[in-house]
């Protein structure tokens, strides 16, 4: 029956008779007090141990990058030539790079930007992609064609010249309006999000094509649900599978994309140690100082892992086909 495949190893397939609505033998005892949908979703989420663990891990990471620099007082750009390329030690828990700068401090500081950019860019790409994909998927004819033309346009754009152009046009204005750091941040999130929404849109649209012909949607329509309601309450929750996968992949891609931008001189200044940047700086020293590359790589990997399991948990929590 529906939901016979568990979505998480700590999940259990529903017992056969416990909640059969036809079991009228003891209706009074089995009626539960009314619960809001949000609380219901949270309860379901909590059932997946892996998802909860991942959420905790992610919160720890966020706490470390937010509060860490306040507690670990070593400067991120203290150049110390006597301590170059040293492995992990008490003074430098994650080792040092080739200018003797402390990697732990740099990772904490850069983590703020990496995580913030990763999450923000991913959210932007997902939101825009889902919006455009749903509109295109529900409508037909002209609207769909126009939106797909737009998608194809963005897919064909050569990223680098466009980046150069956008940054050259908007950098100063954003800096003036929001201050140098926030301005650059907004610009980078916008730029990365701009290039990652198209796959999401097409995936969502494809899902919509197949879902909107299904019986439950027809039933909803027959009951008088407006298009918006059909989309939001019925189709969208079922279309989320690929969106969540795209979300995980986008976080990793956004963190790396930020470092590519910085490498091209278009992102944050070169001395800001985002995780992708540290990974890039360490590549020529892989055989000399593997620790330099290991830690940022591990950090990105952990973040991606955590977000993925949270996504799995979310999908199951919000899945309307689940009975439990």
């Amino acid at each position, binding site marked *: 029956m529906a939901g016979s495949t568990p979505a998480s190893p700590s999940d259990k397939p529903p017992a056969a008779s416990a909640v059969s609505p036809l079991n009228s033998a003891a209706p009074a005892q089995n009626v539960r007090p009314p619960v809001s949908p949000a609380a219901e979703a949270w309860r379901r989420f909590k059932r997946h141990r892996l998802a909860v663990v991942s959420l905790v891990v992610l919160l720890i990471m966020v706490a470390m990058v937010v509060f860490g620099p306040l507690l670990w007082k070593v400067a991120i*750009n*203290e*150049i110390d*030539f006597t301590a*170059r*390329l040293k492995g992990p030690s008490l003074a430098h828990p994650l080792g040092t790079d*080739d*200018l003797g700068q402390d990697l732990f401090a740099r990772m904490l500081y850069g983590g703020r930007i990496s995580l913030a950019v990763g999450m923000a860019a991913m959210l932007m790409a997902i939101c825009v992609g889902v919006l455009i994909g749903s509109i295109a998927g529900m409508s037909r004819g002209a609207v769909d064609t126009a939106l797909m033309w737009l998608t194809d346009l963005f897919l064909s754009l050569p990223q680098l010249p466009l980046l*150069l152009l956008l940054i*050259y046009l908007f950098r100063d204005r954003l800096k003036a309006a929001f201050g*140098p750091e926030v301005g650059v941040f907004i610009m980078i999130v916008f730029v990365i999000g701009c290039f990652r929404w198209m796959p999401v849109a097409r995936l969502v649209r494809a899902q919509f094509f197949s879902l909107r012909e299904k019986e439950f949607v027809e039933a909803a329509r027959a009951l008088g649900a407006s298009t918006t309601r059909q989309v939001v309450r019925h189709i969208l929750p079922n279309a989320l599978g690929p969106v969540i996968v795209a979300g995980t992949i986008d976080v990793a891609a956004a963190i790396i994309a930020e470092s590519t931008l910085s*490498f*091209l*001189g*278009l992102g944050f*200044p*070169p*001395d800001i140690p985002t995780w992708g940047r540290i990974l890039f*700086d360490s*590549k*020529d*020293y892989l*055989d*000399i100082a593997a620790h330099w590359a290991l830690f940022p790589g591990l950090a990105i990997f952990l973040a991606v892992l955590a977000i993925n399991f949270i996504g799995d948990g979310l999908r199951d929590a919000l899945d309307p086909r689940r009975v439990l």
Partner: protein
Amino acid sequence: MQERDLRDLIENVREGKLPRRSFIQQMVSLGLTAPMASMMLMHSGVAQAQVPSTYKPTKRGGGGALKVLWWQGATLLQPHFAAGTKDQEGSRIFYEPLAVWDNDGNLVPVLATEIPSRENGGLSADGKSVTWKLKKGVTWHDGQPFTADDCVFTADFARDPASAAVTSGVYKDVKVDKVDSHTIRVSFSKATPFWATAFVAAEGMIIPKHLFAPYIGGKSREAPNNLKPVGTGPYKFVEFKPGDIVRGEINNNYHMPNRPFFDSIEMKGGGDAASAARAVLQTGEYDYAWNLQVEDEVLKRMEAGGKGRVQIVSSGDIEFIQLNPTDPFTEVDGERSSMKTKHFAFTDPAVRQAMALLADRKSIQEFIYGRTGIATSNFLNNPPRFRSPNTSFEFNIDKANQILDGAGWKKGADGVREKGGKKMKFVYQTSVNGIRQKEQAIVKQACQKAGIELELKSVTAAVFFSSDVANPDTYGKFYCDMQMYTTTMTQPDAERFMDQYLTKEISAKANKWQGRNICRWSNDEYDKAFHAAEGELDPVKRAALFIRMNDMVIKDGVVLPLISRPRVRGSNLKLVTRLSGWDLDFAGLQDWYREV
């Protein structure tokens, strides 16, 4: 360094008391080039040394394939259209000039029989003409004979504005006459002490008249031989894929005996410097790699494998920082960094002095460049005997702090110095380059300790070095407080190097920021000295003037030389090359061989 001292030195060389090579090295250290030093000696009648040949192989060919890596691949093979040294090197495999510069600044004949001098009648007494005698019996790769007509044609081709040749500057003001089938005379409108420009080195490659004649002028881009070069060089053309690969095979009719050693040559492009270093030094897949701009630490580790070695050839390139004497953030008449404004901090000589003390050249050399760079405060290494005043470099944060305190720049609550309400926060820009970003980090830290805050900015090289009028990030615009890059001595003669400090060359909106004086430095005495040097026939007097001008620039502190950067190449242990810091890498290609 007075003119008298220079003449004394030359006398010492003539009398044999001072080795020629030492003299050349000393001139180089004062900011001149080896070719200039060599010309000085020649003018004074000191004959050029006969360089003994170290070429060992006793027969032509049999050496197998020579594989070289140029991580910026050649995009065209016509030397007069070359957009950069990579194209010149690619062309140089097939084409040759009359003479090339070797590492000691000597002229070595290639297609000429001997180097013109006063003794053999090649140089006229009034300095207005040079007569070159061409080698007889040289043929182009297609069998046609090489004659004086080809030289005359090459000059006409380059001179024609419709051809849009990049070498036109060299041939614009010279007249080339054919004296007989194997003799030409190059005439200048006025006496020219540095006469070795036409038909020499990279700009002097000669193209065949019988193939290019129908394509002179406006049709130059259609010549099929633009892509299929036919030259006189040691290798014949086989294949060319722009940006990727150039291939050549042995020229069995090459005009020098027992050369070339290799049966074929392959020049591969693409990738980056670090992987090029790996391919030569670690895996041995390639025999030679160009321009290894990699940290020395990494290079040393790669050499440890024992397959290849790093070759360092000194040349005239200097990495320096420029301090902007104008205000980059105020717009006047539609331009920033205008000469009508003044920088609030860098017009104060005390600040400039402090900045010079804050550049830790020694650490930069030791920990980043290693063998591939030499810390400098002048335009190259200084031997003690010829130290001009104020050319020692010092790194002293305390002294810098004292100077700034004394000049009225007091530290505020946030640790940043200020005066008159303006904080010492500077924007420091350079191109995207791992090594440069590390230099920036080092300078930034030192400045932080002195109460100066630097905001680092890196601009992608293609934009930074462009001349795009609309882009605010080019180095010509200098829309920031400090910038850093390497200036290359691309010409053997220093005159075109020194004109970048003239007042009339100041880069501004009026000349679309094409002016060569990017640091916007203006000094009347300098301008006067330059004009005197332009008209000076005596190369020794001229050299003395250049040295004085050099000192003027450094003393004023607007330009802070950091590191002199020799050329860094990688080669297989068994490969014997003939590299020169004053000409192309392939200037001696016919003499390369592999030891057994």
